[in-house]
């Protein structure tokens, strides 16, 4: 899970896998994904409990829906 200077740089990286091409996104898009409440709520004193609430579950479901998977990749 790395940052690169550009899309071309990422594709030239030795660890690049075209099967996960869907995971190549502008940093602003990743920053948006990592703005999910699952990340925003980490500072609360009851964070682990919160992840198990309805609100926490909904946040996790929403997060999962935005995470790229190999099946969605550009093969």
């Amino acid at each position, binding site marked *: 899970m790395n*940052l*690169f200077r550009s899309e071309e740089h990422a594709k030239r*990286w030795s660890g690049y896998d075209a099967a996960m091409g869907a995971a190549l996104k502008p940093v602003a898009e990743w920053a948006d994904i990592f703005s999910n409440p699952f990340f925003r709520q980490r500072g609360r004193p009851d964070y682990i409990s919160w992840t198990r609430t309805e609100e926490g579950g909904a946040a996790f479901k929403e997060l999962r829906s935005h995470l790229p998977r190999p099946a969605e990749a550009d093969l």
Partner: protein
Amino acid sequence: MTELELLDRGYSAIMAEVVDGARAPHFTELAADLDIELDTARELVHELVGMTPGWVHPGTDLLASFPPFNMQPTQYHITIDGQGGWYAQCGLEATAIRWLVPGKTVRIEAPCLCCGESMVLEMCDEDIVSVDPEPMVGYTSAEIGGAADSRPFR
């Protein structure tokens, strides 16, 4: 299985120490902080890293990663309001550090793995303050939150 209230206290105590001082407590320190037995604290650390998901150094009880931070240095150098000393678990988690330090500017500085040239990303709360170079991208070759034994290597 640790009770939920203790998981909350353990998570919060570890995160607070990492945010304040850029280091994670040893389980013996956590035991003193939470007023619990040493074995309970040791088990608590392992249980929490499985949930977060972070990891301990293999074969030890030493916290190596507690997202969004990494205790073991990575290429993602973090500066918070001008003060350095932190490392991000990965480039993507680095973008989530701002939620733990509201109102402060988080600077992420890292070399590109392709060419070694520097990249800098600055964020504060909802805002991306600066991106250099502008076309910066994020990429992962594995599913986020995937198998525990691969976490340090993707």
